């Protein structure tokens, strides 16, 4: 398979996979999905071999750190009400239940994406990698 075919297919696949990853993240609580799975799909999407421009935006380390911070803060709302840390809090927004477990799942998602993308970048670029 020539590079052109792979490249064109990847360009088409990437947005679709990112959308799928988002859907998996949001529906994880009631149907198969969730933070880990969505993170792996998103990482796979970002690992598709598209001609690389220098990747702008936050580095992988930032992504991981932000994810960890998000996951940690998801427990704080419970601390305010003197419940054990990470106790879930739910609110109803327009009939849709939103809660701290979803915020936690987002944190997991970011950590997984950051880590896998960073690791794959490092493996691909070897000594020229800059862990972006």
């Amino acid at each position, binding site marked *: 398979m020539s590079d052109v075919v792979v490249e064109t297919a990847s360009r088409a696949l990437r947005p679709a996979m990112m959308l799928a990853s988002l859907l998996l993240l949001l529906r994880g609580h009631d149907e198969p999905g*969730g933070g880990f799975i969505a993170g792996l799909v998103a990482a796979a999407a970002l*690992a598709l071999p598209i001609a690389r421009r220098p990747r702008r935006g936050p580095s992988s380390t930032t992504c991981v750190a932000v994810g960890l911070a998000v996951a940690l803060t998801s427990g704080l709302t419970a601390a305010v009400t003197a419940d054990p840390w990470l106790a879930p809090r739910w609110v109803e927004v327009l009939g849709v239940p939103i809660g701290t477990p979803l915020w936690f799942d987002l944190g997991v998602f970011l950590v997984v994406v*950051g880590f896998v993308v960073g690791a794959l970048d490092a493996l691909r670029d070897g000594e020229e990698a800059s862990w972006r």
Partner: protein
Amino acid sequence: MMATLALLFGMAAVAPFAGRLRGRALGGGLAVGLAAATVWLAVRYGPVVAAGGVAVEAYSWVPSLGVTWAFRMDGLALLFALLSTSVGALVCVHAGAYLDRHPERGRFFGTLLVFAAAMVGLVLADDVIVLFVFWELTSIVSFFLVGFAHHEEAPRRAARTALLVTGAGGLALLVGLLLLATITGTARLSEMPAGASAIRDHALYLPALLLVAAGAFTKSAQVPFHAWLPGAMAAPTPVSAYLHSATMVKAGVYLLARVEPTLGETTPWALLLIGVGGITMLHGAARAVLARDLKQVLAHSTVAALGTLVVLLGIGSDASVAAALVMICVHALYKGALFLVAGIVDRATGTRDVERLGGLGRAMPWTFAAAALAGLSMAGLPPLFGFVGKELAYKAKLGFDLGEPVVPLVAVVTNALGVAAASVVALRPFVGAGGVAAAARPGAMLVAPPFLLGLTGLVLGADPALLGGLVEPAATAVLGRPSGVTLEPFYGFGAAFQLSLVTVGAGVVAAIVAPTVRRRLAPTLARLGRVGPASSRALAAVVSGAGRWVDAPSRRRFGRQVAIALLALLALSALVIGAEPPRLELSGIRPPRPEELVLAGLAIAGAAIAATARHRLTAVLAVGVVGVAAALVFMSLGAVDVALTQLLVETLVVVAMAHVLSRMRPRSPVDAPGRPRALGAAVLACGVGALMAIATFAVATSPGRRDVSRWLVAHSVPAGRGENVVNVILVDFRALDTLGEIVVLTAAALGVAALLRTARAPKEAT
């Protein structure tokens, strides 16, 4: 109390973002915050404590273990808390000017404030676990502060050594504290003295004492754990002035004072503390006089001072406890000032070598004044506060009949050497002539803090009763009764005064003789310095040796390491299974379905190909087949989430391997192992496989497990608000475990980033 902690942590969180402010502004602003905290603590809790009361703030934390998030303000806590915040404020002012345009000043101040918060939290903690958390926090933050100039090797090494020593002590402390909690039945430090008599006769008294003492001795740099303190002088001078004179090294002394009502007043306590403290006093004092670097002199004399404090707490009488508390304040004042002065001198002249310094008094009069005040206090001369402290200490040691005449003699020798050290540090750089010239006059923000500290020593020396309202409640907290010691500027011409005269006389002689002795002993000292901190060197050797063995990128060694790990696993499991054979429920097994047989065959075939493949690419793809087969098995059993995750991970692993293989020759043959090795590997593999099968089977059929899964499924919707049990378990019921997993991922990410940076570094150098 928690409000104060919140303020300090809040300032620490904000400081790094204000890094673009000039250092003076940043330091000044934070100093205002710390000063406000000091005033707040003094005003809010001073009267309460002076009247003999306490303030407690406690919240339930882990009720099942009896652990509370408890803080308690009594005299002892207030003394240390005020010391930490007030000295911290002055250090911030000085550091602001010291790091005026330093590019990383935001990070510096953030870390410094975290340390201040941790120190205050440590002294306020009433629960042993809370105490331990803040204790370790101070160790960790000190690592970052000592290693602040992380581009250089010496600070990094010093930070590592300090962390290793204080961390190991911290572990010992944890065990000791838990022992105490178990013996007394309570985790609250304030409730422990109630059962003191029972504790002292308990079988575990000695282990608990030794462990807690180990924690205190490592933190307070007692022999033989003292070597990290001179090394930590690689830290920026403001850090040394704050941590290594006023706060962190005093934490061990604080701990000993805190547990004295519980563990103290026994012969082992006295022997241990007086013995270790006494040796430390002499060793520190001797090294101080013989050192050439200003900061080394101060470091070693700090070690000696800490030894004195430990001895006084070991004696444990009313007089000695009061003396110790006064000496804590005295030492913080003069040592902090002297460290800051050393920093100013270093800045101005570019050297800290006492042999090359001299005659700076004219160029830096205010600095000289500050140094003189602090030096006189250090030498214990009236009318400074140091004199009051020394008198009290002598009186306490003379009153300790069991120690005569050794203890007072050791004290006299130590203090005489201290006088000499004071002259080296506070006098020599400023008088005389012919030293390195000062480049410029240091600014007001640099000089004002040490001058204020020195001046406070003078004021308190003239009227020590000013501090009575602070020292007396602290002594009461330790002794359980008023100490009956009054603070006066002069105690008359008794035995203590005579000892002071002898001390000063001997000290002057020592000061005159010291340079000659130093020069004579220089080669011996240099040799000692290399052997020097033998314990930390041994530790470093062990760590780097182990690292070299694990990291060695050798195919053969990697295989050997894996084999050793698996053998150990098998051996341990054999022991465990042999001791308590698991009951395997064979009744519920049903015959396999056809699709399960197909998938099992697929997996086995894949594994066999991977093990015997002669080309790398084949092996990689075969492993991928095994993974996919596993995913399909999960799918057939109805575990959709697990199957999805397995498939995705397998895909990404293949992608990763493809990247790696693309940089090698993918068709390169795998070295075929010899017959005996292949046979050994096969036996090992079969053994581990059998072990895994037994373990999985035992766990899957255990009766308790079915109850757990039934509970989880039943509560998934009502409590977890989700129909996907697996996800609900991951992010709700067992969220803490998931949090642990992503912390591990974060650590791995940082590790890979660091490895890449070091791999790149040699190339950048060329």
